[in-house]
């Protein structure tokens, strides 16, 4: 039955018109990914009227192709300018931008794109393989585990993301508090709005992230007066691309783990690519032997999150297609397009419309390969951007960022928010408060609160020790918090032991 479906899907997809639609979708997705503030949702909404008159398979090719590769376009801005085009590439900045600063932009982009492609392919295969076993996997993880996962994510990034763990935790707490501004979905009231109508809907993520990362980073570079790549030398060009691709294949464990994590997280409705990206980075950096090197320009720090955010697309399609439960806003729009085309997501997608389901898998695979090759071809030109004097580049980037901040809700106040957070991010960087835990806390604060209230109602105040997985996660958090001190104790004791041994050897020798 599967092979019949595969043959029918291949027959639909491998036609010149379907390929043209797919190519156009991929090009649109890459472009939108490259512009800060424009996300996968924007792509879907913008092109929805355009695809409605098309045949279902052409519409799928265009719209899914565009949506699947937005995160690939994000990779470029995250590495080149420290600007995550959407939140799904947030963790890519942590090591991608330092690599660009070291003059290894081409290598980082190539590694990011190759791992994106591989992650996308694994995610698509996962989509096909996991549909039958989907339900028990989702049932294991409840709100208690989700609450703990967010807490662990913030702790992990605080530990890895900056020079001071204490300041990282403070930054995460501040981010969580800022996320509470506005309408409270749990009680239906308003919090910390200071009587301003603008704050009723809370602070939008895009202006905050644009300010905290892009504007602040440009301000920092302006004060130093350097280009993004502070280290001068020959441009890497295609040599860098090959090095990056080779690095990805060399670290195959990293992208396989990242892809599986991404696909698994993608399955859980409501979590999305951001958590996949951050969690995969956190697991990679947290389990590495040289974890101190992360955040300073480590290629594995690009491969792990990039493979996860593309693999997540395959996973996210599982609840949407198999059960008709969209896991995110973009999946909800995609589902509505399918329904308008007369395809009802649900169990029928496996029994009656298997060819359509398999065509999703094929589109995901081809779109990821196409996007990676397109972006890789552009890499040598993009690499030159990192060598341009910052006094030429920064004003242009800051102006584009203000447009990006405005375009989300079309409010001038969002531009003000972006600039305010630019200022905050500038001083945070100056005084060693890492902005990464702040943004993670800010992004996940509301979901964390919802998860907490559901857990409190379902299992009471001791929910975190009643559920085995959440208890394990709690233990991980405690170990993470104590880690800097445990590590120091361990190093000191080993140092003492080796000194004592050396002393004994010397005594014997004399």
């Amino acid at each position, binding site marked *: 039955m599967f092979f019949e479906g595969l043959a029918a899907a291949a027959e639909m997809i491998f036609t010149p018109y379907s390929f043209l639609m797919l190519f156009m979708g991929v090009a649109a997705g890459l472009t939108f990914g490259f512009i800060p503030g424009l996300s996968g949702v924007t792509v879907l909404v913008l092109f929805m009227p355009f695809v409605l008159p098309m045949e279902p398979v052409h519409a799928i090719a265009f719209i899914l192709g565009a949506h699947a590769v937005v995160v690939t376009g994000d990779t470029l801005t995250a590495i080149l300018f420290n600007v995550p085009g959407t939140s799904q590439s947030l963790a890519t900045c942590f090591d991608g931008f330092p690599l660009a600063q*070291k003059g290894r932009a081409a290598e980082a982009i190539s590694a990011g794109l190759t791992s994106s492609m591989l992650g996308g392919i694994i995610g698509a295969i996962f989509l096909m393989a996991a549909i039958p076993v989907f339900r028990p996997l989702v049932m294991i993880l409840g709100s208690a585990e989700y609450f703990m996962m967010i807490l662990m994510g913030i702790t992990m990034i605080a530990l890895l993301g900056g020079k001071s763990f204490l300041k990282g935790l403070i930054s995460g*707490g501040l981010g969580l508090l800022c996320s509470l501004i506005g309408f409270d979905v749990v009680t239906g009231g308003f919090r*910390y709005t200071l009587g301003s109508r603008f704050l009723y809907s809370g602070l939008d993520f895009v202006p905050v992230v644009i300010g905290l990362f892009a504007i602040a980073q440009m*301000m920092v570079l302006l004060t130093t007066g350097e280009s993004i790549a502070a280290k001068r030398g020959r441009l890497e060009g295609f040599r860098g691309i090959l090095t990056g691709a080779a690095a990805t294949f060399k670290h195959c464990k990293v992208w396989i783990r990242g892809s599986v994590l991404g696909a698994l997280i993608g399955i859980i409705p409501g979590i999305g690519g951001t958590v996949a990206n951050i969690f995969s980075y956190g697991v990679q950096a947290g389990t590495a032997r040289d974890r101190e090197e992360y955040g300073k320009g480590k290629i594995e720090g690009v491969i792990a999150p990039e493979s996860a955010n593309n693999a997540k697309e395959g996973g996210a399609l599982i609840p949407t297609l198999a059960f008709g439960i969209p896991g995110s806003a973009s999946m909800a729009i995609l589902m509505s397009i399918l329904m308008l085309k007369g395809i009802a997501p649900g169990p029928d997608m496996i029994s009656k419309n298997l060819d359509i389901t398999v065509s999703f898998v094929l589109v995901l695979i081809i779109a990821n390969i196409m996007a990676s090759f397109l972006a890789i071809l552009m890499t040598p030109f993009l690499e030159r951007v990192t060598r341009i004097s910052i006094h030429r580049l920064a004003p242009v980037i800051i102006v*584009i960022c203000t447009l990006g901040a*405005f375009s989300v809700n079309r409010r001038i106040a969002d531009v003000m928010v972006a600039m305010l957070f630019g200022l905050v991010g500038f001083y945070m*960087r100056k*005084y060693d*408060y890492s902005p990464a835990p702040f943004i993670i806390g800010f992004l996940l604060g509301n979901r964390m609160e919802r998860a*907490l209230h559901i857990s409190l109602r379902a299992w009471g105040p001791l929910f975190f020790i009643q559920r085995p997985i959440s208890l394990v996660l709690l233990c991980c958090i405690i170990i993470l918090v104590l880690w800097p001190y445990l590590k120091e104790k361990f190093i000191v004791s080993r140092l003492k032991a080796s000194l004592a041994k050396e002393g004994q050897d010397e005594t014997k020798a004399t």
Partner: protein
Amino acid sequence: MKLKLPDWFSLLVFLIVLMFFFGAFSFTTRAKTIPLIVAAPTLFLIALQIVLEVLPSPIGRWYQGKNIQNQLAARDELAYAQTDCTASKPVRQDLVTVACLAVLFLLVWLLGLIAGGLLFIFVYYKFIAGESWLSSISTALIVGLISYGLFEVILKTSTWRGFLF
């Protein structure tokens, strides 16, 4: 005991979190759960941070020593890539950068997003970066045209027209 700029910044963060903490008491019991759960430990951590950095306690001295060691190690490894290289730059340069941001906002607010942005790029290029007239005007025009084409024509987003228009 003299407070340095980073200590003042930590104090400012402390005050902001303190406002969040006391602000939570005006909410209903359910609404204030998370604000209090988050704000209380954050306040404690900032207080700890300030005490460790400012007070001349043995723990504070140990912590400061550890910080200096960390910073020195980081500089040895990646001096050019770290953002803390701004720490040695004069405060005036920081103020100029902050003033540029304020000027951009003022221009955008008064003249609109595209015209304000265009003017900002021209002024920055010509009078701060010291670029030629041709380079300043052409860059400003290109960015303005691309922004207009993308946001106004393709995306049909009517951008902010400015307070004056």
